[in-house]
């Protein structure tokens, strides 16, 4: 597809949507959002990119083969589950701590958020693996 409008829009949408996905991910535990949606939103501009410029170009922008994200996401999610085990608690027990950020006050940090990060990365990788493979189907 060689639409100039689509190509131009895509270029500008890419950083915006990535920022938006980080925003969605960050607030997901307290407001609508979370790893699933954020992962999909993050994948959207690359999907658009592959439609506008072709999968090869999209892969170049992404730099890393999306299949790596699948494995990495699963690994992170699994780690989040195992952290509780290391502390002698059942698999997937939540472990929480907090971080004091100057100006913002304490921020809760816990394994469920790490797990959500795994979901985020995994969904991102899954979506792009599928889209790129389909785009490249001959």
């Amino acid at each position, binding site marked *: 597809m060689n639409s100039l409008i689509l190509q131009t829009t895509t270029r500008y949408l890419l950083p915006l949507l990535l920022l938006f996905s980080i925003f969605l991910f960050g607030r997901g535990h*307290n*407001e609508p959002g979370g790893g*699933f949606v954020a992962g999909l939103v993050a994948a959207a501009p690359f999907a658009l990119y592959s439609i506008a410029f072709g999968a090869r170009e999209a892969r170049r922008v992404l730099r890393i083969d999306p299949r790596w994200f699948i494995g990495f996401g699963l690994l992170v999610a699994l780690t989040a589950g195992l952290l509780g085990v290391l502390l002698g608690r059942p698999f997937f027990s939540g472990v929480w701590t907090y971080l004091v950020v100057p100006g913002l006050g304490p921020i809760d940090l816990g394994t469920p958020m790490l797990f959500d990060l795994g979901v985020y990365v995994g*969904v991102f990788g*899954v979506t792009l693996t599928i889209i790129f*493979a*389909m785009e490249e*189907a001959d």
Partner: protein
Amino acid sequence: MEIVLAFVIGGLYAAAVYMLLRRSLVKMLIGLALLSHAANLLIFAVARLTRGRPPIISLGAEDLASPYADPLPQALILTSIVISFGVMAFALALAYRTYRTTGTDDLDAMRGSDR
């Protein structure tokens, strides 16, 4: 208010079943997509509906303020939506590969392995 959804669900199931019974592989895939909508709405509706009250605890509060939409079916449906996407993608890829290999999308012409 669930009554409307009851008929929407029935309609979606009817449309999905009709498409699943087609001989054409591509039509069957559309049936599959409709079926997942129908099933998701079914879970949503039978758990009872609540208008415009997302299950989100207000800042500073300790518990959900009643009435609120039931979060559990929502979590299940969210899982289901994403899984359906994976299944749909796989089915589409399978259809593509099948067509490339057999040269037809007529399911009746693909009986070979089953007889």
